[in-house]
């Protein structure tokens, strides 16, 4: 029977086919052809800078300015946020953007740069990490850091929270190490250029920014502490010398790289947050303050687009107000630390370290001038404004309150304004509901759900950040 002979032949054929389909075929098939397995530091730096700018200019700016009443929550969730009605889930995205997009990628950049001896990137990544970590601590106090970022390294999936004071030391160490790397920046095979969207690879400006970050560490703790104030002054002296040194990130203004406030205003969220007028035609606290001070920055910050009836605004009193081009344009910058903030800090630190009122006032006036120059306010208008508001009152506490008030105006949409208010109490803000204004954000639902053993309890008022008084 011929047919019987076929059987072994068929089975042999099948067997050969199968053994030739070697395991390597299966293994190779599982390599994703559409992703990269390694990248160089110059491909990570733009991500980290942009991630930081988008996070600060987006979620952090929205939350902090609703609290400091630089903006007004008019509708949907923002109406609730304005009256401090937050769930822990509201902070998940912000926390994610800080820990994943910004810090995890920055850490990867740092490790990649260190491994390749690319000193400039080693330095820049540390300065950015220091800045981000300090801002994170100023929002929540104790946060994960030393045991964080382990998911792809086989480490813990439930990081412990480090003490806020210890993290300030970490920030300081990162800055010191960063400056050392930046001072020897030309070592290594790649140096930053166009991929450094902030400074175009200018190491001297990065060093100034590093000192500014460190200056903030001290200035946050300088109330009644002459040593901290003196340290702040030392760092300020090494930081920015002009507006051209400012640590600023400018968006591209293309459809996929728009300023976050612009994105918010041009989406269906438009109207959820108002800037000049509340819904019933009452000025927002911030607009009222500018009007009261006859501040020439009113129409720099706020636009004159429409009044309540849809007509062009006749006067500040009737305009609903979007954000004007400087901070609300498609390619508007997000500012991290600027020269004028350092000058305000200098004025404050002079007073807290026992310096003279005259020196403080010089720094204070220089701060207002620098700010108005940055914003393009005509010199004459600036001079008029300084004539009216440039004199500091006699007592240190009043003077610091006045410095802080002007700094609050200058730090428009910058989360540092919230920190300033918390540590100085200036300007005087009335709670929108209840008796207290939030002094921190809640830890996110994400940590409470997935890292419950380590995540401390929190309310919007307790525990305060260690420097808050």
């Amino acid at each position, binding site marked *: 029977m011929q047919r019987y002979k076929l059987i072994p032949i*068929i089975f042999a054929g099948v067997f050969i086919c199968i053994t030739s389909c070697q395991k390597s075929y299966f293994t190779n098939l599982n390599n*994703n052809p559409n992703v990269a397995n390694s*990248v160089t530091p110059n491909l990570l730096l*733009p991500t980290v800078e942009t*991630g930081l700018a988008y996070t600060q200019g987006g979620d952090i700016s929205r939350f902090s300015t609703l609290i400091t009443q630089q903006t007004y929550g008019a509708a949907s969730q923002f109406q609730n946020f304005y009256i401090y009605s937050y769930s822990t889930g509201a902070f998940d995205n912000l926390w994610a953007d800080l820990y994943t997009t910004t810090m995890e990628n920055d850490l990867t950049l740092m490790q990649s740069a260190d491994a390749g001896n690319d000193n400039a990137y080693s330095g820049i990544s540390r300065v950015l990490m220091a800045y981000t970590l300090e801002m994170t601590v100023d929002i929540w106090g104790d946060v994960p850091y030393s045991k964080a970022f382990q998911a792809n390294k086989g480490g813990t999936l439930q990081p412990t929270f480090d003490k806020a004071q210890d993290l300030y030391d970490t920030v300081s160490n990162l800055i010191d190490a960063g400056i050392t790397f930046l001072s020897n920046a030309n070592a290594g095979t790649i140096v930053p250029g166009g991929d450094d969207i902030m400074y175009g690879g200018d190491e001297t400006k990065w060093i100034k920014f590093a000192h500014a970050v460190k200056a903030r560490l001290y200035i946050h703790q300088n109330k009644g502490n002459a040593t901290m104030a003196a340290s702040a002054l030392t760092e300020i002296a090494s930081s920015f010398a002009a507006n051209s040194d400012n640590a600023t990130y400018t968006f591209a203004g293309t459809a996929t790289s728009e300023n976050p406030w612009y994105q918010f205003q041009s989406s269906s969220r438009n109207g959820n947050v108002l800037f000049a007028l509340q*819904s019933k035609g009452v000025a927002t606290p911030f607009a009222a303050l500018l009007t009261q001070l006859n501040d020439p920055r009113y129409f720099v910050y706020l636009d004159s687009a429409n009044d309540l009836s849809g007509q062009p605004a006749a006067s500040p009193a009737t305009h609903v107000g979007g954000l004007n081009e400087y901070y609300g344009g498609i390619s508007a910058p997000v500012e991290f630390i600027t020269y004028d903030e350092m000058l305000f800090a200098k004025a404050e630190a002079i007073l807290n370290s026992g310096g003279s009122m005259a020196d403080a006032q010089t720094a204070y006036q220089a701060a207002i001038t620098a700010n108005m120059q940055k914003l393009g306010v005509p010199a004459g208008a600036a001079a008029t404004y300084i004539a009216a508001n440039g004199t500091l009152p006699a007592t240190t506490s009043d003077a610091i309150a006045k410095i802080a008030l002007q700094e609050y105006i200058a730090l428009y949409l910058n989360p540092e304004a919230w920190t300033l208010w918390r540590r100085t109490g200036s300007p005087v803000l009335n709670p929108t509901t209840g008796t207290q204004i939030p002094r921190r954000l809640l830890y996110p639902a994400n940590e409470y759900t997935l890292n419950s053993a380590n995540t401390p309890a929190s309310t919007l008022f307790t525990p305060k950040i260690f420097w808050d008084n």
Partner: protein
Amino acid sequence: MRKFVSLVTAALCCLVTTLSAQTKEITGKVTDATGNPVPGASVRVKGIRGGVSADANGIFKINIPANAILIFSGVGLETQEINVGNLQNINVSLKQAATTSMSEVVVTALGIKREKRQLGVATQTISSDQLNKSGTGNPLSEMNGKVSGLTVINSAGDPGSGTYIRLRGVNSITGDNQPLIVIDGIPVDNSINNYDAEGNGFSASNANGNLVGGAQPTNRGLDINPDDIESVSVLKGPSASALWGMKGANGVILITTKKGSGKRGTSVTFNSSVTIDKISQTPALQNQWSKGSDGEYLGPEIGSSSTSWGAKMDTLSWDGNTSYKWDKHGAIVGNSDPSAKIPVHPYNQYDFFQTGFTTNNNVALSGNNDKSTFRLAVGNLYQTGVIPTSKYNKTTVNLSGESNITDRLHATASILYTNSYNKKIQQGSNVSGIMLGLTRTPPSFDNSNGYSDAAGHPDAYIFPDGTQRNYRGGVGYNNPYWTVNEAPTTSDLNRVLGSIQADYRLLNWMTLTYRLGGDIYTQSDKIAYNVNDESFPLGAVVLVDYISTIFNSDFIVNMHKSFNKDFEGSLIVGNNFYNNQKNTRFAEGQQLAIPGFLDMSNASTYLSSEGELRKSTMAFYAEAELNYKKQLYLTLTGRRETSSTLPKANDVYYYPSAALSWIFTELPNFKNGNIISFGKLRASYADVAHDPPPYALNTPYSTATFADGWTGGITFPFNGIPGYQISSAITTVGNTNLKPENTRSVELGADLAFLKNRIGLNVTAYYSKTTDDILPVSLPFSTGFGAIELNAASLSNKGLEVTLNTTPVLKKDLRWDLNFNWSRNISKVIQLSPGVNELLIGGFGGGEAEVAAIPGQPFGVLYGATQIHAGYNPKAPALNQNNLSSPVILNDTKGDPGFAQPLTDAGPLQVIGDPNPKWLGSVISSLSYKKFTFAFQIDIRHGGDMWNGTRGALEQKGTSQRTANRGQSVTFKGLLGHLDANGNLVHYGPDGVTEIAGPGDANTNSSVYTQYYWQNIQSSFGAPTQEVDVENAGFTRVRQVSLSYELPNDLFGKNTFSRISFTVFANNVLLWTKYDGVDPETSLGGPANAQGLDYFNNPGTKTYGVRLNFGL
């Protein structure tokens, strides 16, 4: 014609027809018990695949080898075997099968046919006459209610919208839980290929996708034309599908396509149906209150005002100014205003919907000659939806042939080709979504601008300067007429699906089968947004091409042997190779230079990407079956499988199954029993593994992109500068230690027939447990990542399925079949991952309504924030802080805006509902009298919750009918209390100052339904509680009702039309539900694991139609 048939068949099979000398021709007639011919009755030779079908008069002709046994079968008739011997002409009378014939032949794993009586597992079969009744052309939705344990959920009534199917419960938390669809032995693709341009991007593109916006996704199972289906076998549990391996872990739906039949030569059948669609159920809207806030009317030009909390409509008038661009009646002023002219009347937003219209035409040509059969069928479905401009057009061509080339070699080939075009509409949480803009529109604004067919009048939705005409001054949400014209989503599909198969009877007891099949398609989608669309104010065009290829090869050796009089055995040994590659080509252009020119070349910024998903598996398998006296059957299977998606060290897996069945009515005591005519007990066990998705082992770098949930975010490159990321909030860390997940199941059942098969009862109970379930376990973001792939979770399902088939009346001219299906499944998530209490399956997350997996709970519960109830204890573990069944706490803090209203103070996140129905049931009745047949199907879904986010949002916006009661006073029922500074539940003592722990007395304070109440207390929209919008979405519906009449076949003279029938039918005509929104059979996430969310879902439809069938 005979030559033509041969040519077609030969070309198909790529084989040459040759005659074999040993055959002889048999002719005969097949009739039923009443003597009527059985058209299309199947006649085949035992042990040989294929066969012929009787013609319209029951006449057949077949060539058979010597000493063959012929098997005769027909729908609804008992199968009969006849030993041919020397007979030349055989006339067979087949007995009426009542409803539950156990001699019925069913297609089981690998396309092997088995008699139903011997199976040790639960299967259910749907025959062709039960499909294609609704005229929708959707084979999956046609199965609704017809199989116990099969859940079918239609996402929406849009043409081409998705259908989710699930057998029994969920086996994998984030994997695909839909059963494998197999057509003629080839596993085919049932993917959802979808891109949500505004929100989740490609993350919506699979079973665990989290779609909340975009256009309603389609699953590719829709491509099959129900008219090409001969039968559907549903293999329910993993034990039924053990031979399909990893792919069959969720059960298998085996589709057998129609093959050639009819009289010698050719025959033609034609059917045509015309249906109209009406909208079924919509959220109720108020029509008494105008746009605005705090009782003050704010006109459409004030874009920051999005609500209908304005003045009462009857206090307002139009000023008659025809140049007012927002309304043809003029601007709205108070009645006392001097310019007041015409009293304002409310506009009905639902005038937007239109009557949908569908035609479904099918022509089939089939025939046979001595040894070969063929079928060529063309079908077309043309559907316009209830939403203007929505459309679905599907054309299918099916060509199949079979040939007995020799008496030992049988060949089969079939090709299905589908071409479809779908114009889809944006939906859901999406400012371009239809229902969002439509239902939020105040009754004081007319989206249509006075046109009865506004979708065809640009004046209704676009101003001459290109800005949008909507109720919010051009910002906010799209005017729905804008969406259907200026935000089109289209999908073009071309698909070829086919197989060739050769069976060679090597020995009388051994057959070799080789089958090669493929499923190849290209789906090209275009999503466009004109300039000034609310989603993309600068305009955008997205092009996505999906190219999918599946190849499947099976080599099977089928052996059958009788050992002696009592023992019989069969053994199947096989090899399977499966390869699937899916490529995605994506391009997005934003910032359109010329408004209205929705073309990629018109964009100023571009993003593009490509994706290539590859997977291969190879397996050896065996099935051994042994029976004793055709009474006791034992079936054992084993499979060894290798998958490319597993790490090299772990990539080979073995899994077994066993089934035992005992037909106790074969015992002598039961012979000739009048009460019990058939009885079988069965038990089975199976162990099935499931591999991870491709590329789950590594953590690579990808182009950086991030967003925060409020804004569109950033995508690199940035002005030409590239940026890469290793992490973002949605990045999952790979894991090189993954192993397959595992599902073990046991099943016990009984199949009983009583009173000469007039009553059939099938009962199946099952339990299954999945362990090592692979899922991206959510991580605290402080780990630097969003999730990590782990073999972490386990979950179980247990359930009961009952089918009861009865034939209460069976007479010559009158027959009544009444069938019931009932099933209940209880799922339980046993664990996720250590320390993980909750996993988002779909929805919004972040404390807003979501579908979640939570240990100890059924799969896919609704999870969100609650009101404060009397049992509130903030010290209790998460998920248990509140007792939702205890009374609501009503705020006793005088002076609070929410005084005497439910306390919503940031309640804890908890399980707030369970979308899984308590049970599913259906009643299917068919009553035939002479040539008339009246049939209906009633489906019941008992229980199952839905988060009605639409209602919540409309309450916040003030358009919901429920908010019409504003200003009325109310005393809420509940206990007094509030939360103290430490967050504990307390109430005020008699002095109104002292706080006393726990809730106080019953509330007697009255309150008023205010804007504050509806926006901050009752609504789940942007407010602290989701609990308030969870509703029971159970329903009872008349799924289908039809009346057919079969014309006498000699009406037009003999030999013209063999069969003509005429049917009028209606689908979903009656719906009883407490659900307060669109048709509760809806799913925001589309055909995905996350069910139970309604957030501006597009509405469902009811259908009325007529159908004509005739054959030549």
